[in-house]
C-alpha cells in the first residue's frame, strides 16, 4: 500500500468519528423540539444544531479528501507528491476541528465585534467556523490540491477522471473564500453565501463524488475506463447544465429580482431528469453483474446512493421547488426533510461505499460480506427514511398552519409548532434518530472488524503463498 493510502485510512477514521459526533449533536438538537427548555442556557439548540451541521460538512469533506488520497496512487501508479506535508496537514486539520468544537461548546458566543468572528463564531450557517480556523481549512485544501496536481505532473499523465477532478478543485478552494467576509447587507450576504453553499453542495461536490464514484466503479465492478469516463462527462454536463442556474431556487425570497422565480423554478424542475438516468445506470449495473461482487457492502451502498439521490434530491426537491409552492414550504421542516434525504443519498452513501472498498484492499480480504453490514445498512436506511418521513409530516403541518393559514407571525409560528401533526412528526423523528444511531454503532463495529477474519480456504491459500494465515 502507498503512504497516501495509509493517510486515506486516517481520514476515513476521522470522518467516521465526526459522523458519530454529528449523530449525537443531532439527537441533542432534536430533543429540544420534544422537550422545551432542554439544556437551555447550557447547551442551547443553536449550539447543538451548529455542531450537527458543521460536523456533517467536515466529515463528508474528510471522506472526499480521504477517497482522493486513496485513489490517486492507484490511478497514477505512483506515490502522492508531498505526502509528508499532507500527513502533517491531516493532524492540523484534526486539531483545528477539535479546537473549534471546544470553542463552540464552551465559549459559544461573544460580543458584536470582529474579534468574535475571528476567534469564536462567524454565525453564518454551514460556515460558522471562526476565521482563524477557516484559514486552517483553506491551507488543508491548498495542500490537498498541491498533492493531487503535483502527482499528476510528476506522473506526466492526466486521465480523464483526474482532469475533471483537478478542474473541480479550483471552485472547491475558490468558493470557500466566501466564508470570510461579513457583509452588512443581508440580501447581498445571502447572495454570495448561496454561491458557497449551493455551488459547493450542488455542483462542486457533485462532480467530486462523481469522480470518486467513477474511480470506485472501476475497482468495484471492473468497469472499463472508457465507460466510466464517458459517463462522468455526461454527468458533469447534466449536473452543471441544470445545477449552476438551479442556484436560482435560493434566490426566490432574499431580495433578489423576480426573474429568479422563473429561472430557479425552471432549472430545478430539470434537476430530476439526470437523476433518473443515474437510477437506470444503477439498475443496469446491478443486472449486468447479477449482483455478484466480492464487496457486497460497497455495492449496496453504491445502489443506495443512486436511489437515495433520486428520491431525496429529485422527488423531495421537486415537490417544493416551484416558487408558488416554495412560498409556503421555504424555511419549514419540509426543507429539513429534503435536506436530510438529499445529503444522505447524494454523499453519505457514496463515502461509505468507498470506505468499504478501501478496507477490502487494506485488509487484503478476498470477499467482504457478513451479517453486521446488513444490519447497519438496514438500520441506517430505515432510520433515515423514518426521519425524513416524520419531518415531512411536520413540515406539511407547519407550511399549512403557520405559513398558509397563519401568515408566519410569532402567533402563527407557535400554532404551527404546537399542532398535533407537527408534534407527532417531530417525536417520530427523534425515535427514528435513535434507530439511525443504532445503525451507526453497528456500522462502526463492522468497519472495525470486517475482512479481518479470513475464511479457512483463504488462510490455506495465504499459508501456501508464504503469508500470515
Amino acid at each position, binding site marked *: 500500500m502507498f503512504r497516501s493510502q495509509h493517510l486515506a485510512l486516517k481520514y476515513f477514521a476521522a470522518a467516521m468519528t465526526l459522523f458519530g459526533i454529528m449523530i449525537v449533536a443531532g439527537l441533542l438538537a432534536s430533543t429540544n423540539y420534544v422537550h422545551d427548555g432542554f439544556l437551555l442556557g447550557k447547551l442551547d439548540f443553536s449550539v447543538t444544531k451548529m455542531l450537527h451541521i458543521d460536523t456533517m460538512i467536515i466529515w463528508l469533506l474528510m471522506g472526499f479528501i480521504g477517497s482522493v488520497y486513496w485513489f490517486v496512487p492507484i490511478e497514477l501508479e505512483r506515490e502522492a507528491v508531498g505526502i509528508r506535508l499532507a500527513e502533517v496537514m491531516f493532524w492540523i486539520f484534526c486539531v483545528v476541528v477539535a479546537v473549534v468544537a471546544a470553542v463552540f461548546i464552551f465559549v459559544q458566543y461573544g460580543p458584536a465585534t470582529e474579534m468574535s468572528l475571528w476567534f469564536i463564531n462567524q454565525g453564518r450557517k454551514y460556515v460558522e467556523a471562526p476565521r482563524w480556523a477557516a484559514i486552517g481549512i483553506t491551507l488543508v485544501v491548498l495542500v490537498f490540491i498541491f498533492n493531487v496536481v503535483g502527482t499528476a505532473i510528476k506522473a506526466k499523465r492526466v486521465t480523464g477522471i483526474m482532469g475533471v477532478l483537478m478542474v473541480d478543485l479550483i471552485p472547491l478552494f475558490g468558493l470557500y473564500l466566501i466564508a470570510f467576509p461579513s457583509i452588512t447587507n443581508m440580501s447581498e450576504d445571502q447572495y454570495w453565501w448561496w454561491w458557497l453553499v449551493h455551488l459547493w453542495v450542488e455542483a462542486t461536490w457533485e462532480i467530486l463524488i462523481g469522480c470518486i464514484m467513477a474511480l470506485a466503479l472501476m475497482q468495484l465492478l471492473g*468497469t*472499463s*475506463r*472508457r*465507460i466510466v469516463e*464517458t*459517463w462522468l462527462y455526461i454527468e458533469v454536463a447534466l449536473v452543471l447544465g441544470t445545477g449552476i442556474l438551479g442556484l436560482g431556487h435560493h434566490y426566490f425570497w432574499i431580495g433578489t429580482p423576480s426573474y429568479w422565480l*422563473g429561472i430557479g*423554478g*425552471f432549472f430545478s*424542475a*430539470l434537476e*430530476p*431528469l439526470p437523476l*433518473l*438516468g443515474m*437510477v*437506470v*445506470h444503477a*439498475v*443496469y449495473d446491478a*443486472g*449486468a453483474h447479477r449482483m455478484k461482487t466480492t464487496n457486497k457492502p460497497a455495492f449496496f451502498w453504491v445502489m443506495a446512493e443512486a436511489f437515495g439521490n*433520486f*428520491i431525496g434530491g*429529485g*422527488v*423531495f426537491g*421537486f*415537490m*417544493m421547488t*416551484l416558487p*408558488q*409552492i416554495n412560498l*409556503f*414550504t421555504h424555511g419549514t421542516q419540509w426543507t429539513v426533510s429534503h435536506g436530510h434525504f438529499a445529503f444522505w443519498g447524494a454523499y453519505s452513501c457514496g463515502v461509505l461505499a468507498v470506505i468499504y472498498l478501501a478496507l477490502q484492499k487494506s485488509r487484503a480480504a478476498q470477499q467482504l460480506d457478513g451479517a453486521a453490514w446488513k444490519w447497519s445498512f438496514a438500520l441506517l436506511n430505515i432510520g433515515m427514511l423514518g426521519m425524513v418521513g416524520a419531518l415531512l409530516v411536520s413540515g*406539511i403541518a407547519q*407550511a*399549512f*398552519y403557520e405559513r*398558509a*393559514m397563519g401568515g408566519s407571525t410569532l402567533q402563527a409560528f407557535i400554532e404551527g409548532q404546537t399542532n398535533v401533526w407537527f408534534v407527532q412528526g417531530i417525536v417520530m423523528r427523534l425515535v427514528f434518530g435513535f434507530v439511525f444511531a443504532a445503525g451507526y454503532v453497528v456500522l462502526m463495529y463492522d468497519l472495525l472488524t470486517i475482512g479481518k477474519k479470513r475464511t479457512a480456504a483463504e488462510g490455506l491459500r495465504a499459508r501456501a503463498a508464504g503469508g500470515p494465515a
Partner: protein
Amino acid sequence: MTAAQMLGTSLLLAIFVLLAGCYGVLYCLARLRASRRFGRAAATAYVLQGLCAALLAFSPLDFWWKVLLLGSFVAYLPIPPLTWRLLENLHESGEQHS
C-alpha cells in the same frame, strides 16, 4: 393559492416524479428479464404519470409551470430507453477497447 391547494399540488408534484422513477426502474427490469409483465407495468407507471400531469393541469399553478410539467412529462419518456441503449453500446465498445 389556499392551504389545501398548496398541499394537494405539492403532493401531486412528488407523485409525478416518483412515478417517473417507477417507470424507469420497471423499464430496466423489463429489459433485464426480457419480461412482458414488467414492460406493461412500466407503461402503466408512465400512463399514471400522465394522469398526474393531467390533474396538475387543474391545479392553481401558473400557466407556464403547467407547460413545463407537460414538457418534462414528455422528456421522461425517452430517458430510460436512451440511457439503456447508450449503456449497452458503451459496454460493447468498451469491451472491444479494453
